Structure formats: structure tokens, C-alpha cells
């Protein structure tokens, strides 16, 4: 019996569900690297239904499915706009459910995945609904922390755009399940919305990076988007002061890891790539075993 039929939001998962998925992902890691074979999803078809462009999430799901012996059909954003002209999402989901055993959905509107699940005969996996949820990103973030650092007694700083970043919002909720100590580092205009913390019970503090850099185990950096600022100069000023360089990490613990959901723009200088702290490319690889665990959970 699967622990969940659809994966819509990280909020729908318990701590035990999350640990279960991370454990399963660990079992798949070697296969994800191309070492060893699995055919457990042979004969199954996954439909990637993308109403918005996203190369890497789509490719990561495709790789995960193929590593388990399954096949993939795709509807890209361009096809979505022409093929499904005038068709409701409810109908599109019902039709594609006749071709595939599960659907990965990315849609520009918030709540689209939950709505799709209500109309779908096959499992729906949310691959991002507007500014809403992106649970597989959160699970791969947690997996990266567990593999490269530790989820026990974790001290983590989240830096960058904490106001609009769905990645950060979902990650904060999940991290409180693990009783992590969370430091929020952001320009005032991109601080975490105060009502976000209502009902969230956790050790969450605002800080400056130089005050905590010696203490933390994980530095999670997110992109500061230009369009959030009234003018170019203001953006440059803020973005410049929230940039991580090899020098920023001079006082950090040896074991500190730096993460980023990618793509990065200027937030992490390339000088960091060569340090032992850089784990963001590893993080993106971990998306494959984590998605293998999710696919096998909903499709078997």
C-alpha cells in the first residue's frame, strides 16, 4: 500500500513519510548513477505535462523514470498552448490519464496540482504550481542535507529572496519537522512574510550572515530576482551584498555545505565551486534518486 497516491504539497507528508522517501532514494542512488539496473517500472508510462517551461525538472523526472526501466511521454509548454487551446485543465488531465500511469504536472496557477488530483484517475506529482508548491525540490533538498551534512541538530541559514521563494517556504516547513535551527538572511524588502510563520512552531531567527557563518552547517542560497526591484541600481546594490564568495566562507566550519536550487545568476561566485563547501551540483543529481523513490511509490 502506497503511503500517498498523489504528491501535491510537502505539507501533506509526515516526518515519517519524508524519512521513508529519503531511505528509498538512498537505495536507488547507485542506479541513478548508472551503476546497476532496475526494471521495476518496465511497462509503465509517465506523462510529463508542463504548462510552463522547465528543462531540468522535466529531464530529472525523465532520467528517474528511465533509470527504473519505464518510459516517458511529454507535453511541453509550447504544445500545451497550442494543443490544449480552449480545453480545461480538468479535461487535459482526464485525457492524459488514459495514456499514462502517472502525471508530473507543472502549471502557472497556484493550486492547479491539487485541483488536477481531484480530476485524475492516475497519480499526480506536483512539479511546481506557480508560486505555490514544489515538493520534489524540498525532498531533494532534505536528501542533500542528510547525505552531505545531517538533519539531526541542524543549523541552517537561508539566504536571498525569502519573500517570494516557494523553495524556501516549503523547506522551512519541512525543516521544522526535524527541529532545525533556522537563520533567515535577506534584504529587508525580501524578508519572510510575517504571516508565514503563524502556526509554525520552530526555532527561526533573523540574522546577518557574518554573525552566524562560523556556527552553521548549511548555507542555502536562493536567487534574488531583478524584477523584484524598482530599478537596476537598487537591485545591483542588494544583490551585491548578498553574494557568496570563497572569501565569505573563510571563517566557516570545514563541514559547511553550500546549497542552491539552481539556476544561479550572481548569488554564488564561481570561486566557491572549487571549494569543498560547494554541493549545489551534487544537490541537482540527488533529484534523480529522490524522484525515483517518488515514482516507484506512486506507480507500484
Amino acid at each position: 500500500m502506497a503511503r500517498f497516491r498523489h504528491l501535491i504539497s510537502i505539507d501533506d507528508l509526515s516526518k515519517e513519510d519524508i524519512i521513508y522517501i529519503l531511505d528509498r532514494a538512498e537505495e536507488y542512488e547507485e542506479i541513478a548513477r548508472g551503476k546497476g539496473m532496475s526494471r521495476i517500472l518496465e511497462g509503465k508510462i509517465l506523462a510529463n505535462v508542463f504548462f510552463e517551461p522547465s528543462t531540468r525538472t522535466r529531464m530529472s523526472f525523465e532520467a528517474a523514470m528511465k533509470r527504473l526501466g519505464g518510459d516517458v511521454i511529454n507535453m511541453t509548454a509550447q504544445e500545451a498552448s497550442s494543443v490544449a487551446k480552449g480545453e480545461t485543465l480538468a479535461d487535459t488531465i482526464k485525457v492524459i490519464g488514459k495514456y499514462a500511469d502517472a502525471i508530473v504536472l507543472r502549471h502557472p496557477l497556484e493550486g492547479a496540482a491539487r485541483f488536477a488530483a481531484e480530476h485524475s484517475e492516475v497519480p499526480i506529482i506536483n512539479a511546481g504550481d506557480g508560486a505555490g508548491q514544489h515538493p520534489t525540490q524540498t525532498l531533494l533538498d532534505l536528501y542533500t542535507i542528510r547525505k552531505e551534512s545531517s538533519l539531526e541538530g541542524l543549523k541552517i541559514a537561508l539566504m536571498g529572496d525569502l519573500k517570494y521563494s516557494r523553495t524556501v517556504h516549503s523547506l522551512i516547513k519541512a525543516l521544522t519537522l526535524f527541529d532545525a535551527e533556522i537563520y533567515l538572511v535577506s534584504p529587508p524588502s525580501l524578508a519572510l512574510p510575517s504571516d508565514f510563520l503563524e502556526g509554525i512552531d520552530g526555532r527561526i531567527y533573523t540574522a546577518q550572515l557574518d554573525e552566524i557563518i562560523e556556527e552553521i552547517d548549511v548555507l542555502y542560497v536562493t536567487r534574488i530576482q531583478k524584477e523584484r526591484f524598482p530599478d537596476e541600481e537598487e537591485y545591483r546594490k542588494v544583490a551585491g551584498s548578498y553574494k557568496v564568495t570563497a572569501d565569505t566562507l573563510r571563517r566557516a566550519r570545514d563541514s559547511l555545505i553550500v546549497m542552491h536550487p539552481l539556476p544561479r545568476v550572481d548569488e554564488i561566485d564561481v570561486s566557491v565551486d572549487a571549494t569543498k563547501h560547494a554541493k549545489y551540483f551534487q544537490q541537482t543529481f540527488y533529484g534523480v534518486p529522490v524522484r525515483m523513490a517518488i515514482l516507484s511509490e506512486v506507480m507500484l
Partner: protein
Amino acid sequence: MTEQLAVSKIKEGTVIDHINAGKALLVLKILGISAGSKERVLMAMNVPSRKMGRKDIVKVEGKFIGEEELNRIALIAPKATINLIKDYEIYKKFRVVLPETVEGVLTCPNRHCITNSREPIVRRFNVSMVDDSVVVKCHYCGRKITEVDKYIVST
């Protein structure tokens, strides 16, 4: 002026009392009573009340409104009381209870929410009390609403 003088008695139907002052029109909206409705409706606004200072009253003649529908009134008037009347006498009296979820009665302020698209969808909200105020949360996008009054739609 007493309450009895403010609105005349009805022979049969539903009386909604102890509505927060100024909210009677919203109560009608929640109940789907509008200009085209056929019900005979009596309404009093800003009536003096011992318990509430001022209150509104709505009487709907000839119609026994269902409890589930009436409980939606708790979204804007959590202290409202209901009297069901037969032959000018109260035969059932109860207080509205805040429902755990409401469907169709509110609209989501998030313009990027799937409920504001042309999908075949019934808007659903989860309801809770936070510090004596009603807070609702969109079932689909998760947006919280504290000023519930602003987002009532006619059912």
C-alpha cells in the same frame, strides 16, 4: 425602541438574531437572497441590544433555511442565533456553529489561484478561529483571508 417594534413578527419562517451590527446585508448575500428573490424578508439594522450594544436582525418569512446553510453565517456573525418559527411561536432555537469548511460562499483574493480560472471548480475554504477572529484558508492555493467580509459571494 424595543426589538419587537423594530421588526414585526412572522407567522412561519427563519429568524436570524444577534447578527453583528451592519452585517445583515452580507447575511442575505450568504443566504443567496437578492433583488430577484421571492421570499418576504424583514430586516433591521443597528437595533439596540443588551448583549451586543447594537445588532442586526433578519427574518425570512415562509422558509425554513437548512442548518448547514445557516452555519455559513458564522463566517461574519459568529454569535448569531437562529429561531425557527411556526404559528408565531419558536419551535427550534440554536446558535450558528462555525463550519470546518465552506464551499461556494467565498472567492479567493489570489488572482493566480486556480479557482479564479475558467476551470470547473467549487471554491473551498478551510475555516478556523484565531484570537477570536475567523480566518479562512483557500483549499487550493493556501492563501489565508482574515477580512472574510470582503470576499463573500452570493450563493
